[in-house]
């Protein structure tokens, strides 16, 4: 056997690198692969059945062997068979696929949250501690990680094939996906939704690390300010604390402990306060007036970036008492005078 050494090396390298199957690097991956093999199996079986029938009949009843065709009308029994068996198989695929879908898209409650902003053409990840990274994501293994993602411009899609996860990153709304990495290593991160000229360059690397290494990485990459701290600063500089100061006479509702609660609105509906609601309440306040308050809050559309919104949301999420708001109020009221009557402010 003489195989060109170049070709041989290439083949060996390729087989080792990826072969015909991606690595299984998350807790979900084995579940996804199990369904994949089941689907592959029924495809092969189906193809074999069809192939056997077609080739078998074609050989058995070719004209030389069978010069005159026997006319057959049909058969209810046969037709019922090939209606019911595929239907049953497809329903199994449906149930199995649905179970997997709920497993992939329903994060466990103890997941650690990382924010991801997609923009033409890069991924920007923001950790709780304020660590930022571009086209890279560092995560610990053995711990569920939830990504809260949003796009600043067009549709993008966050895909890590070795984790078997993917989720569309949508302008104007948060989407989430979670995973738990199992093996340290680096994995491809792709944008899989066509997003313009440099779509194929919008790729990055997910680095899964042992918890110890991850802690070291966090400490080494810290910017000194956590997302919540950035949010607090923004909260003050945009004047939010003038109304949302947590006092009884405040013109805006108290934000302490509001995250995760049910809120009664003036239009009678009740909403769950989550990331998406907070973001929307900042951008479109007139659509979300808390019961008992006047519609006086201006929109912040175009005044705050998606990164800034994440900081604000993260800050509000963490507010459990009025203490910090009042602190900010005291420090920032010195140089500004709030309008005396609520009616003096246009919504």
């Amino acid at each position, binding site marked *: 056997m003489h195989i060109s050494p170049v070709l041989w090396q290439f083949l060996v390298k390729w087989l080792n690198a990826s072969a015909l199957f991606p690595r299984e690097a998350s807790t979900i991956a084995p579940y996804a692969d199990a369904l994949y093999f089941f689907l592959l199996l029924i495809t092969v079986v189906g193809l074999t059945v069809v192939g056997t029938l077609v080739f078998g009949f074609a050989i058995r009843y070719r004209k030389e062997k069978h010069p005159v065709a026997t006319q057959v009308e049909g058969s209810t029994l046969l*037709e019922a068979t*090939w209606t019911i068996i595929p239907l049953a198989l497809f329903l199994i695929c449906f149930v199995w696929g649905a179970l997997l879908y709920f497993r992939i898209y329903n994060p466990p409650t103890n997941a650690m949250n990382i924010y991801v902003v997609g923009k033409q053409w890069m991924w920007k990840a923001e950790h709780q501690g304020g660590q930022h990274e571009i086209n890279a994501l560092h995560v610990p293994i053995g711990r569920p990680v939830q990504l809260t993602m949003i796009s600043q411009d067009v549709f993008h899609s966050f895909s890590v094939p070795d984790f078997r996860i993917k989720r569309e990153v949508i302008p104007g709304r948060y989407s989430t996906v979670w995973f738990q990495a199992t093996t340290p290593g680096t994995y491809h991160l792709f944008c899989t939704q066509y997003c313009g000229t440099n779509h*194929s360059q919008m790729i990055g690397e997910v680095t899964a690390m042992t918890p110890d290494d991850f802690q070291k990485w966090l400490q080494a990459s810290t910017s000194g300010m956590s997302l919540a701290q950035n949010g607090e600063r923004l909260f003050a500089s945009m004047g939010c604390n003038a109304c949302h100061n947590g006092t009884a006479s405040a013109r805006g509702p108290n934000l302490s402990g509001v995250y995760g609660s049910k809120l009664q609105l003036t239009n009678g509906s009740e909403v769950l306060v989550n990331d998406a609601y907070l973001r929307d309440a900042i951008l479109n306040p007139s659509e979300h007036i808390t019961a008992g308050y006047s519609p006086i809050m201006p929109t912040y559309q175009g005044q705050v970036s998606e990164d800034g919104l994440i900081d604000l949301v993260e800050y509000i999420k963490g507010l459990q008492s009025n203490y910090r708001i009042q602190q900010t109020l005291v420090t920032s009221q010195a140089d500004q005078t709030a309008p005396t009557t609520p009616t003096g402010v246009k919504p």
Partner: protein
Amino acid sequence: MSATSSTIVNLPDQKTATLPKRSYLNNEDGLLSWLLTGDHKRIAILYLISITFFFFIGGAFAGLIRLELLTPQPDLVASDTYNKFFSMHGIIMVFLFLVPSVPATLGNFLMPIMIGAKDLAFPKVNLLSWYLYWVGGLFTLAALVLGGVDTGWTFTTPLSTHYLNTHVVTAAVGIFIIGFSSIFTGLNFIVTIHRMRAPGMTWFRLPLFVWSNYAASILMVLGTPVLAITLVLVALERTIGIGVFDPTKGGDPLLFQHLFWFYSHPAVYIMILPGMGVISEVISTFSRKRVFGYTAVAFSSVAIALFGFFVWAHHMFIMGVSNYSALVFSLLTMLVAVPSAIKIFNWAFTLQKGSITFETPMLYAFGFMGLFTIGGMTGVFLGALGMDIHLTETYFIVAHFHFVMVGGMLMAFLSGVHFWWPKMTGRMYPESLSKLAAVTTFIGFNLTFLPQFILGYLGMPRRYHAYPPEFQVLNVLSTAGATVLGVGYMLPLLYLGWSLKYGAIAGNNPWQATGLEWQIQSPPLTENFIEVPIVDHEAYDYEWLAHKTEQEVTTVG
């Protein structure tokens, strides 16, 4: 003798045979008589030439795409050029080739003859729809010549409305106009099938090709207007910023996805259903048998058309639709797969106890069955919710829909073109070359698209101009396959062209098929039938045919 025993081709004596003196081809002369014709057969020929033209333009872009993907580096063209390549490939192939291919060419030519009518219900509307096709086609070509468009064929907002400076509106206007061509064809077919069947041609005596075109016509009439509306909204959003798809103005970018797929999923069935009709005709003819479970096959076409409207959101499983609506759409997707499975088994059992021969149309039909089964089953992968998460937006999707569209639809189209070529032109094509083309296409197709399933599971995203180096081997295989496939498509162009002048005279019924179209002269007269036929037998009644032939022989004798 052995050569003739394996074939049913029944050609007249080539020394004495001539084409009929008068036919739809020479009834009137001059370019103008073609451009102003109301004859459905001439319009079908105009369409055939037109879609072939666009098919090879779209194919050239496919070749360029595969050539670029030969290496992982972006070395052949720049990113934006590559993006324009796949956008133009998609737009041209979907709107200017796949959607009109079978209905507007074979359907236009044959459907009226098959039901015993002289023409379609509205001959002038039929001509108008060809002109609309070309007006739309010219807009699309203009977008191409002026510098291209890089939205992909899906025109996703807000990318297409706010972030691209290419000729989006020109291309959208083109597709908008082509849409009307499709709507008119659909309307024409529905009215013709309802109102113009010959005496005795009851619904359950219709050839299955007519049933499948009927089902596709319903989809064209009901689905295409939604596409038209969507494109108008895209154009308005782009030009004056009305904001329906813009979140900063209170619009919803997901709304576009809903609207677009509400047409574009049924569009898949507009493409594939008429192809399925061709397969029913071909398999029946070359196994000399009535299609097994005729009623089931007919109703499965209608079932596919109806279910086809309720599965659009399976294109959006990862886009943040609610988990429960994902459940519903996944279930409906599984249900729509069942009628396709029914058809496959009915075709297979049509072969049982038949008397089977292997002419070129039959080879293409066998190719169709294999490729469509793979295409259909891989659709189940994508319908299964959790699996879709990993597979969607990768090369798995690319391979899946090419198996259905190109492996299924295009094999069916070529099967039909070869099957009815003798009827349309009065001449045969060289048999060994055409069989070679069928086999080449099948091999080339599998070599091109099977590796893409693996690439997809490995995670290679679609629409990537450059890719990580470990995906190269499979991409090289795919590009090699595309070359073979290209040869497979060029061959028919050459020998079919050759046959127009040099092909053997075919006679009226070279395949000894039962359809009404085979009982008239080849090529047919402008008015199709000298007197209105009276139908007294079911479709695919080979005993009736044998009896009839016997009678003719006795009368002549």
